[in-house]
């Protein structure tokens, strides 16, 4: 497919270009709050989420681990790619939960804000999540939803952190974005030598008394030797 040129603020879900299931991701929501750290667009062929679900999950992960002045977030780490792939692999048992949870989430956004999540501005998106992050689901959360609002949010949060910090071979943590963010070097096939920090370098080793063989009566009982 041909690469599509994006103007920085042009993205909304309805303009997403899906050709043969391949979709271009990585541009901002239309409010463009993340100008400075905008993630470059990339292409991803949806595997287990459909385009709308994928867009929605992507937007959720960006709220959960936002890109901001402190550094890149879920967008740069391509967390949604991790989730999409994981739903066909080691998180396959969550596929139906995503299916029904996302349907409930869509309905909740329509009930509460009269628009799909993807069309809400960043402030409202954040308010949506705040409303869900309470012990009791909001009144606008569909009653027939198989899970509560907070349970759904927590599930996506957990998987977002997995996509942020798991090995890049799972599809997220793109170019070790998550690891660099927290200064974790990742795999260490050759390990490390001490000192590991200023603490173990500067705190003196305790001087322990020298061991002497026990000089009391040795009463060790050995089977077959008694």
């Amino acid at each position: 497919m041909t690469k599509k040129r994006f103007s920085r603020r042009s993205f909304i879900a309805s303009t997403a270009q899906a050709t043969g299931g391949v979709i271009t991701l990585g541009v901002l929501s239309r409010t463009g709050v993340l100008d400075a750290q905008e993630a470059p667009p990339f292409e991803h062929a949806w595997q287990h989420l459909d385009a709308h679900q994928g867009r929605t999950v992507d937007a959720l992960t960006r709220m959960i681990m936002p890109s901001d002045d402190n550094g890149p977030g879920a967008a740069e780490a391509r967390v949604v790619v991790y989730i999409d792939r994981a739903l066909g692999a080691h998180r396959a048992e969550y596929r139906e939960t995503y299916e029904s949870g996302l349907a409930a989430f869509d309905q909740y956004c329509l009930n509460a804000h009269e628009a799909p999540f993807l069309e809400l501005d960043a402030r409202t998106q954040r308010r949506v999540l705040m409303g869900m992050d309470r012990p009791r689901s909001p009144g606008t959360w569909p009653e027939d939803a198989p899970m509560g609002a907070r349970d759904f949010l927590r599930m996506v949060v957990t998987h977002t952190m997995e996509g942020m910090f798991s090995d890049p071979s799972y599809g997220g943590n793109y170019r070790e974005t998550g690891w660099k963010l927290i200064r974790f070097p990742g795999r260490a096939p050759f390990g490390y030598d001490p000192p590991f920090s200023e603490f173990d370098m500067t705190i003196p080793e305790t001087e322990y008394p020298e061991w002497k063989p026990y000089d009391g009566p040795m009463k060790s009982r050995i089977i077959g030797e008694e």
Partner: protein
Amino acid sequence: MSLPNPNIRRPDVIIIGTGAAGAVLAKELSTKGLRVVAMEMGSFLKTRHFDQDELQAMHPASNNPDHPNIYRHDQPNTYRQSADVQATEDHGIHMQSTVGGSTLHYTGISWRLHENDFKERSLFGDLDGADVQDWPIDYWDLEHYYEKAEYEIGISGLAGANPFDPPRRRPYPMPPVPRTSSGALSDLAAGKLGWHSYPAPLAINSREYGGRSPVMNCGFCESYVCTIQARSSMLVTMIPQALRTGNCQIRADACVREIVVDEDGRAEGVIYLDKDLREHRLEARAVIVCCNGVHTPRLLLMSKSNLFPDGLANSSGKVGKHLMFNYYQSARGFYEKDLNEYKGVMDTRIIQDFYDPDPDKYGFFGGGVLEPRGDGETISFANLNMPRLRRWGARRKKWIMDNYTRYMVALTSMQSMSQESNTIDLDPDVNDKWGLPVPRVTYNVHPNEHKLGDFFRERARELLDAAGAHGVVASPNFVPRGDAHLMGTCRMGNDPATSVVNKFNQAHDVDNLFIVDGSSFVTSGKSNPTLTIQALAFRCADYIVTQMARLNIR
């Protein structure tokens, strides 16, 4: 180099389970010339199957064929807090069921029980609602076997460093592993508080030992399978030694569903299911059960016969009773500077100053230990439950960034009270992939455990504060649904009416049946039961060999 794994059709001994006890017995007995088949319900994975991959080690949740089943909670169970409620499905029992068992991923802390641990009833009396008893053996029955375990398996440590250690005849075969930042802070705090922080004895090589590499401080430690074989797991120590004798076969992916008895009530052999659920029968002169505190009683309870209608070796009715874990509490301390606890061995210091405090003075029974440590897990840390901090959003992100390299954990581990009402039995409703009933855990804490928890949580705070933490977050008391330390369910004793095995780990009811693992513990100790399980296994092997030589076991 490929080791022999001969097909042994008529073994002298069948061992069920290849973990801390089963592997030691397989090595000892095969070395003495007995023909051994060791059965394992999981697969025979090799070091190359494991990786420095947090997702693989810590968070898998399904049996996807792309991800070998190596998770530490890989067998299902059900749980209920008391016998009057319905059990629900759970994964609280930590147990790796591949060849080598949970020694593949354990922290490796390997200390000896103290002399007092074997006689708490005599020393401290009984406790309302609990069933504390003395062991039928004492420290001196195990001292030689502790030493044997330390040298044959490979334990690093520093003899003489812990003033509370029981007497020993030889020092550790290896010096301690390098101290981490949390270890250094433990030393600093203990110095200020008048406590004794000493190098943790560990089943981890500090230098080349047994042909295996020294530790490389990679930080992928507990919960991970060591990629360079520096951890002295059974898979890289006892199992290859057993195979090298040519007298031992490891039969993996083989789930024993029943131990069968002849008309005289002696163990005749086992019936097991292979991967394709085909049933096989194997006979031997003796059977040894080494499936630890949950699966050992489950197998005995599944082995019903006319002679043993309530389960094999269960004339006392005590099989599956007295389940014990090690209760624990922890606090997390945050510091201004980097600790980088993603480097190094998980736990390099232990503090035993409160190992057995006087009950009259402290108002609780038993004691515990502090095990200050780090954990480098990124995903778990990012998802950590923190007061007044949402799980998501810019503040969460900033918090993860600021703190991932700057915390340590003061884990405290303590005694669990033996209670007859804490049990393993067969779940009446839920079956596993072999079509066998899963173990049902019924477990509640004794009030004493929460008193211990309160006391040790404060010691954890004290340690972190003394080490200069700017913030400390502690966990509340809780009721454990499971644990990695699984003990007490076939307790050892001299009286066949109140115990399952005698002091040689031989079933009172069946003289050619042995039960060696955490289930024979009478009391839980304070933490880290593995070295004691291994010492019991070395000792039981000596007993079996002498009995077979004397033809007491035909």
